[in-house]
């Protein structure tokens, strides 16, 4: 305790200043502590009453007094002020004793109660005190207590009790008769004297009289003892004292047992409960297991669940205890549920491989009766197939919905627009047309898009799910599922054994999946390759989906398909699937390649066919239009595209390996080239077939473009010019383009290329012939036809004609015509001039010959004239003379009578020279 630092407490007031023990007092003063804890103790009348201290303020404390009797100081001890002093005192009063049968307003401490039997003396004295020795009836007996202390102070030793040794008469009187008047006391004195006298007279008798109860009591006690003694002795005589004792003891024991029966039974119950608790504690694991299983399942700690279950199984599955059986059954029930849940989870696809493996492992760990791995595999197989079919259905649906979307809008636009403005009607019309066209295009584009999406999705399903499936199988079949987590090797072996039974089925499943995939591809892209023989096949065919097939798919889509399928193949073959599984995929790739090849060819052919409309008839310096080069471009592009298709990946069958394919491709291929020729042909003869302008060609050019396209020069071209251009194009193509192109295809190992070359050549030649003939028909025949009328113009008579004055006009006309042809051809392609002119001249010469030979009679002048004409013609066209024409001219000359004189000859030469000089500019073109 620290040394006190402050002033010591001083008690200056006490309220109340006296009282029995445990009176509540208020102590007032100074420095009575700074807090409840500062007050270390309070002592009243030397008795510690710290327990009851209730600190209020430094000047006030409540407290209850202890059992101190008499006057004493009130000492407060505080931490801060040390032991205090007191200027006032407290007087402790004795507790009034209360008998067990008396009512009392205060609580009486019975622990200090003394045995009443020992109190007899006191009692008897009390009895004697009850009647006042003075014979006075004291009514103020009750105030005795209050004055007790003062009297005690006054008399110190001594007692107010008349029976006491230290009897103090004054105290007695003060205590009992302080208010009694003197005369009464005198009476009392007289009474006492009388009594004393009586006592002395009949002392023994009175004594006996007074003490009669005592005598009786003594007598009773003595007779009681005597009686007991007699009984004891009597019992001993009968010899059954012990028996009696025994029976009594037994009885007592029995009673005791009876008394404690309930207690004991309670104890038993408690024991059994305790035992049960022990059991519960010891097998807490089992009893908590059902709950724990639920909890762990919810938390996803499947491994823990399985471990717990294993443990429980090994511990309790053989148990004979009913409780355990019950709980274990409960556990089994939960586990069964859990198993179902796991099964469902396993069948929730798609899910990553590791998860599936985990789930299968759990199922195996749970001792699943079947073969969860295999079930999972089968389910996955089904799921893959289902997802493929679903994918197919969805895309077919979107494919069907696509066109519908676009049908409404143009109409709406139409109605709106009509209302808006008359001025825009033309534009509206154009818009409308374009809109319809757009719709059409959209249809197609939509379809392509749908196909693309479908392709993408389908292949993604195939490339993602089949490997997963296979991986799962491999993990399953090799026991990796278990061995990677370090399961027992025996389990792994079991699994392997189980798996080996399924390997064949697995192969089947995989093949099924691949075949489905392939067939779905076929249904979408190669509908023709799915044969329908009977109803069953039909049903099967329908399951692969029937795609709307009005528009054939573009080759690029097919090629994409090829690529996708190839990608699939590559990915799947990297899995080392069982042999033969991917055969059908190989097949479909082959088919797709063939189809895409032929579609490419077909599309190129279509493009070429379309070239016709792109002919602008603008002739380049080489005498050709853009057509051949466009053809060339298309073909070269085709070659580059087709090269990819034809390039076989390792393990793939070359496209041209099959004869059927060969012939088909050759056919397509040939058509590609013949299309060009026919395209040219149609270009040239366009006016004939399409002179009727109202007839809109059903080609790919949109009407809009046709309407707004500038008027091409071909409108002003003559048929003859077109023919010449055609021939020019043809020959250009044949000479410069055809063979390099064919070489390209030869490099690509196209089959029957030689045969094809021949076909092409002949085709081109034929067309050339046709063009040429047509031209001749158009140009030369009028020329030759004009000869005869010209010859006989003005009723010319060979026989009677005058001496010739020069070359006759019909020759000049013919020459002019020939010059026209020359110019025409030259303007297009100078290289072609000889070919044309030779033919022209040959035909002219033939006609001349015929006409000459037809002359029946010819005079000298006539023959001279004829000779002049023929020679002039021959010499003018000498540059393009062929053997045929020269022989014709020679024959013609021969059929005319020969020249007789040299003068004539000279005349003739003069005239020819004159003719030549006249027509010098015209004839220069022939040189």
């Amino acid at each position, binding site marked *: 305790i620290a040394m006190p630092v402050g002033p010591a407490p001083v008690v*200056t*007031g006490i*309220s109340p*200043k006296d009282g029995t023990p445990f009176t509540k007092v208020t102590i007032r003063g100074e420095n009575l502590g700074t807090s409840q804890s500062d007050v270390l103790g309070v002592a009243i009348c030397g008795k510690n009453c710290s327990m009851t201290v209730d600190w209020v303020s430094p000047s006030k404390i409540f407290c209850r007094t202890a059992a101190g009797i008499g006057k004493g100081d009130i000492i407060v001890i505080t931490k801060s002020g040390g032991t205090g002093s007191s200027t*006032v005192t407290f007087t402790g009063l004795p507790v009034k004793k209360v008998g067990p049968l008396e009512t009392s307003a205060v609580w009486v401490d019975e622990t200090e109660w003394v045995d009443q039997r020992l109190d007899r003396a006191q009692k008897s004295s009390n009895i004697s005190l009850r009647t006042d020795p003075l014979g006075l009836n004291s009514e103020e007996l009750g105030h005795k207590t*209050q004055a007790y202390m003062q009297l005690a102070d006054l008399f110190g030793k001594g007692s107010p009790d008349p029976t006491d040794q230290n009897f103090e008469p004054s105290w007695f009187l003060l205590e009992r008769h*302080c208010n009694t008047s003197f005369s009464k006391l005198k009476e009392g004195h007289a009474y006492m004297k009388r009594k004393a006298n009586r006592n002395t007279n009949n002392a023994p008798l009175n004594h006996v009289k007074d003490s009669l109860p005592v005598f009786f009591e003594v007598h009773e006690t003595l007779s009681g003892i005597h009686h007991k003694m007699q009984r004891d002795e009597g019992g001993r005589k009968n010899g059954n004292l012990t028996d009696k004792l025994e029976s009594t003891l037994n009885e007592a024991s029995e009673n005791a047992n009876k008394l404690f029966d309930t207690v004991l039974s309670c104890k038993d119950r408690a024991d059994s409960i305790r035992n049960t608790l022990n059991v519960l504690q010891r097998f807490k694991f089992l009893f908590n297991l059902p709950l724990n299983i639920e909890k762990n399942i919810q938390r996803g700690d499947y491994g823990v669940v399985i471990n717990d279950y294993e443990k429980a199984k090994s511990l309790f599955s053989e148990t004979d205890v009913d409780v355990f059986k019950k709980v274990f059954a409960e556990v089994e029930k939960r586990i069964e549920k859990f198993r179902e849940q796991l099964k469902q989870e396993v069948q929730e696809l798609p899910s990553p491989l590791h998860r599936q493996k985990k789930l299968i492992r759990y199922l195996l760990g749970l001792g699943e009766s079947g073969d969860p791995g295999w079930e999972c595999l089968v389910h996955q197989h089904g799921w893959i197939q289902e997802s493929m079919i679903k994918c197919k259905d969805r895309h077919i649906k979107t494919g069907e919905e696509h066109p519908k979307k676009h049908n409404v809008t143009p109409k709406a636009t139409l109605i709106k627009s009509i209302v808006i403005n008359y001025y825009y009607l033309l534009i509206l019309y154009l818009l409308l047309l374009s809109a319809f066209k757009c719709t059409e295009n959209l249809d197609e584009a939509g379809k392509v898009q749908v196909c693309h999406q479908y392709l993408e999705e389908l292949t993604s399903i195939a490339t993602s799910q089949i490997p997963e499936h296979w991986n799962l199988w491999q993990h399953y079949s090799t026991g990796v599922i278990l061995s990677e987590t370090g399961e027992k090797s025996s389990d792994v072996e079991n699994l392997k054994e189980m798996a080996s039974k399924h390997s064949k089925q697995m192969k089947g499943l995989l093949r099924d999946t691949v075949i489905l995939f392939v067939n779905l591809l076929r249904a979408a892209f190669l509908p023709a390759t799915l044969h329908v023989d009977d109803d069953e096949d039909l049903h099967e065919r329908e399951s692969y989906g029937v795609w709307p097939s009005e528009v054939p798919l573009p080759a690029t889509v097919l090629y994409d398909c090829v690529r996708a399928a190839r990608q699939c193949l590559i990915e799947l073959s990297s899995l080392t699937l069982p042999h033969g599984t991917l055969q059908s995929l190989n097949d479909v790739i082959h088919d797709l390649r063939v189809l895409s090849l032929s579609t490419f060819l077909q599309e190129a052919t279509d493009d070429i066919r379309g070239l016709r409309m792109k002919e602008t008839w603008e002739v380049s310096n080489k005498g050709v239009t853009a057509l051949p080069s466009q053809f060339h471009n298309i073909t070269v592009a085709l070659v580059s595209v087709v090269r990819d298709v034809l390039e076989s990946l390792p393990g793939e069958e070359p496209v041209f390996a099959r004869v059927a394919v060969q012939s088909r491709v050759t056919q397509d291929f040939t058509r590609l080239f013949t299309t060009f020729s026919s395209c040219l042909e149609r270009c040239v003869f366009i006016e004939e077939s399409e002179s009727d302008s109202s007839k809109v060609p059903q080609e790919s050019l949109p009407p809009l473009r046709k309407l707004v396209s500038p008027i091409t020069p071909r409108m002003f071209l003559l048929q003859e010019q077109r023919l010449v251009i055609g021939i020019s194009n043809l020959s250009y193509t044949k000479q410069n383009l055809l063979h390099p192109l064919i070489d390209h295809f030869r490099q690509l190992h196209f089959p029957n290329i030689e045969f094809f070359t021949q076909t092409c050549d002949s085709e081109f030649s034929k067309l050339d012939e046709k063009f040429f003939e047509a031209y001749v028909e158009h140009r030369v025949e009028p020329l030759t036809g004009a000869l005869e009328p010209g010859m006989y113009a003005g009723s010319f008579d060979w026989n009677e004609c005058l001496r010739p004055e020069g070359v006759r006009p019909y020759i000049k006309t013919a020459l002019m015509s020939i010059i026209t042809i020359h110019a025409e051809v030259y303007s297009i392609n100078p290289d072609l001039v000889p070919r044309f002119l030779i033919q022209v001249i040959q035909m002219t010469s033939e006609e001349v010959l015929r006409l000459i030979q037809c002359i029946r009679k010819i005079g000298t002048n006539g023959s001279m004239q004829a000779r002049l004409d023929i020679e002039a013609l021959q010499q003018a066209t000498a540059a393009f003379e062929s053997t045929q024409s020269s022989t014709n001219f020679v024959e013609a000359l021969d059929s005319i009578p020969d020249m007789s004189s040299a003068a004539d000859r000279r005349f003739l030469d003069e005239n020819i020279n004159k003719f030549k000089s006249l027509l010098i500019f015209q004839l220069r073109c022939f040189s």
Partner: protein
Amino acid sequence: MAANKKQNAGQTSLHKVIMVGSGGVGKSALTLQFMYDEFVEDYEPTKADSYRKKVVLDGEDAQIDILDTAGQEDYAAIRDNYFRSGEGFLCVFSITDSSSFDDTQDFREQILRVKGVDSTTAGSIPFLLVGNKSDLETNRQVSQADAQQFADKMGVQYVETSAKTRNNVDKVFYDLMGMIQQEKAKVVADSDKPDKAKTGCSCIIV
């Protein structure tokens, strides 16, 4: 009693003051106000409280011992003893309670009886008539004039106090102590009188 006297003579003088009056007139309140400068609102009937305090009276250290008695009639029987030991009396009534004023006569008579003096020598008993609760002027039932008249009749001083506002509280105690001291000085001067008083007292008892 004799022993106490001797003790006090040796040291500072001790003046024993008894608070008398009916229940609830404010004896304890006056006492506590005087002793500790605190005013207690709660009413709790007193049995018998004892206080002692150092005071300076006429420049000398002195001690005042206050016995705060019970006003209730239940304790009337033991009052005699207290009165006997008292040297001075503050007879308190409440100006808001006329019955308490009426009771003061009985108290006065009882004191004189216990002290063994009759009305002629009554002046030798230091006695102060105190009309408490002067702050509750609105509830006044005893007029100051009546009280003063009664005091005059008895030949004692009358003071009105308020334990709540501490009005005249110190005054009554110090006045009474002054009276006690005067009385003691007379006793010292005339040594016969206390003997007389003593015998008178014993006579009544025996």
